[in-house]
């Protein structure tokens, strides 16, 4: 038997009400986030819902073999990583730059107005946005191609061009979401101590120098946090977006794991296969998050726990 040190006991007693207050949140998390993890076992079964986990036939790694033997799996995996990696980079670089630039604007009214406007597309669903984008990017009548034509160039069919399609995904996704990132980064900037700016101003730094030497380093922990969290998404290339924008002519570069799961697993009720791909994604995600968390702890001294 070991005995808790008196100091620990006291701390525990002091903190007990806090722990109790946390309980209502912890219980749903256990029920809704941890308990369903038992469902992972589906990935190794030929799953029949009414028989449940315990009575569905166990098939070992058959579901994984099946996925690996599909003709396009490797291409799809590459597409997924390529698209989401570009999205992650753009999804950090763009809002960071934008929030620094926005912070340089003196008028707070302009700042707030711009912030609200760029935030708006975030609230639209891809179902709606895809309809708009198909019109905007139309080679015949779309605004973008009207501009291209005015510059004397040939119109481009963005959504049916194998080479361009992944980049269209990245650009439109960044456009939709960077307002959200901007809000977070502006909050980070607001948290930087004003005294730093004041003293640098006394030392003769201009606003641009302040941005480079004070704002950017001051934001870094939050940037690291966001980057770490988004690394977990490296196999999530954005189902809603791709599903609503892709077409057979861009399958080769635009088909991603989630759309494959949708077609193979859900449309055909192959739940075991869908779960196998899901499990694979989760394993890759946890490796990435773990590595990034370790790296940010080691080099940026950022830790959650």
């Amino acid at each position: 038997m070991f005995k808790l040190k008196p100091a620990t006991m006291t701390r525990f007693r002091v903190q007990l009400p806090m722990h109790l207050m946390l309980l209502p949140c912890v219980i749903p998390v256990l029920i809704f986030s941890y308990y369903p993890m038992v469902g992972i076992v589906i990935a190794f079964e030929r799953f029949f819902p009414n028989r449940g986990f315990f009575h569905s036939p166990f098939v070992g790694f058959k579901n994984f073999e099946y996925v690996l033997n599909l003709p396009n799996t490797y291409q799809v995996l590459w597409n997924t990583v390529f698209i989401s990696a570009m999205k992650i980079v753009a999804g950090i670089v763009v809002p960071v730059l934008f929030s620094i630039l926005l912070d340089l604007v003196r008028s707070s009214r302009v700042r707030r107005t711009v912030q609200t406007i760029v935030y708006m597309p975030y609230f639209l669903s891809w179902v709606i946005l895809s309809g708009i984008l198909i019109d905007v990017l139309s080679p015949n009548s779309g605004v973008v191609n009207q501009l291209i034509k005015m510059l004397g160039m040939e119109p481009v069919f963005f959504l049916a061009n194998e080479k361009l399609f992944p980049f269209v995904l990245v650009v439109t996704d960044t456009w939709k979401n960077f307002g959200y990132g901007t809000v977070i980064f502006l909050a980070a900037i607001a948290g930087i101590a004003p005294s730093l700016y004041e003293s640098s101003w006394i030392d003769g730094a201009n606003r641009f120098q302040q941005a480079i030497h004070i704002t950017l380093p001051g934001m870094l922990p939050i940037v690291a946090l966001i980057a770490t969290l988004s690394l977990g998404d490296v196999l999530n290339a954005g189902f809603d977006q791709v599903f609503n924008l892709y077409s057979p002519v861009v399958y080769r570069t635009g088909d991603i794991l989630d759309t494959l799961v949708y077609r193979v697993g859900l449309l055909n009720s192959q739940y075991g296969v869908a779960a196998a791909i899901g499990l694979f994604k989760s394993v890759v995600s946890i490796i990435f998050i773990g590595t990034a968390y370790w790296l940010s702890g080691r080099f940026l001294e950022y830790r959650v726990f």
Partner: protein
Amino acid sequence: MKAGLLAVFLFSVAIGMAWAGPAAEEGPAAAPVAAPDDIWARYDPPVTVTSVFSLSAFIEDALNQKPDVMEDNVWTRGYRDDLGIEIDLLWTVPSAQYDEKLSIAIAANDLPDVIPTNAIQFKLLVDSGVAMDITNLFEAYASPLTRQMQELDNQVSISQATVDGKLYALPLIYGNVDNSQLLWIRADWLEALDMEAPTTIDELVQLAEAFVNDDPDGNGEDDTLGLGLVKDLFSTGFADLNGFFEAFGAYPGGWLEDSSGNLMYGDIQPEMKTALTKVAEMFEAGLIDQEFVVKDGGKVAEGTTNGNIGTVFGQHWIPFWPLQDGKNRNTNADWRPFPLPSATGSPTKTMLGGSANRYYVLNSEMQNPEAAVKLLNYFIQKYSSLYSPDYELKYIGSTGTGETNIDEYWEYGVIQSWQPNENIVFWDLTKKYLDTGDEQYAENSLIKQFSVDIGAYHEGEDVYWSTYAWIGPQGPYSVIDGYFKNGQTIQNAYVKANTPSMTERGPALSQLRAEMFTKIITGAESPDTFDEYVATWKRLGGDDITAEVNAVQ
């Protein structure tokens, strides 16, 4: 997909696990069922049958006026008084959410006695042993009229509900006459250009050229297209290419019998290549929307509504959506159905597919399963206005006229089955009633309703156009009736549930088809790559599927 379909799925499955009791590995073997003395015998004391119910817009509206209408309506009263069967609905849900709700109930294994399912859920319940083998039960209890309906349906829906020679559900007969493909054209454009509806594919191409170049809408702008097309290419029922391909004797997704009686898949026949080549030519010539690869049905519908598109292939229902929207906007838009043109010199045959619209699966734990067959017999007896001596108007009801009570309507039936060819007959009766005014043709209240609506349309109320265009004398059924009279139909030779290889290889193969065909049409690949496609299709599992289909057959 941040949270992820998968997360939702795992969650629902977890619930399933929580409630899943011990489950049978296989459905119990069917015991022989002795023929009853009287299949109409009333239960005394009454028995209770549980089920679940999908609420149509009509019933949701009725619930507002009479909250207990699901427990007390013309059908539940009939079941109780005539059959001694009480209905207990475990839950009801608006029809748009029904499939999802039922999938969750299946995952939770919380199922009623009678489970109305779609084709995929049906297969799942059979594979997992929930569905009762009702071969002998149906044989013993089906009424003469029920059997007659199966014959009128050519046993198609019964065969769809049969797996490995055993019947696992009571199918709702929908009638596959409605699978027929038609060519829809703006007749006002034809008239403006002084042209006739095409009877050959060459004439169709000429018509498309004229629609593109000769300004059929007379607005002086170059804004019209030759042929509307959705990116899915096939089987959407609106602006797809099924009708076009059928003109070449090519049947996408269909199974055909070769000369020695073996089944072969339509997608890989040489006729497909000829048809694809023609579509590619039309695309090249600018007769098809150069951006169709990104347009789904909703986007193409904008074209028919705005008056940019004057020709589409489609099924009988498209007057309701989306053509009515075009009529509302432009009263001159005069869409009419025409028989499919032909590219081969002989009359085009349209393919008829499955006929079952819903599958009533009986839970293997159900007590008194024969009660379900009785419910089906009863529905057919009371509903089949064209065939049954016991047919009563109050069981069908009449929508919209206010003459009948809100709780007297066919949709309340717990197990339904329709008359296989009823839309053709309705069309015929409506035409006769409109021609002669003879009341004997309007005994069925629907006929009267149709003629009232059509009259309103002729008085200038465009909102009734869709009824006129759907069931009116020159409507799609005049064309479909012609198909049947002239032998211009062909039955899809395989309409049963997916074979194992279809489930496993199907997604990859349909992706292959979509990719190849779209590229050939847009000119990214030459039509000769079709031969390569056929070889790949066979290699990626197509040969296995063909073998399995022939084994089942």
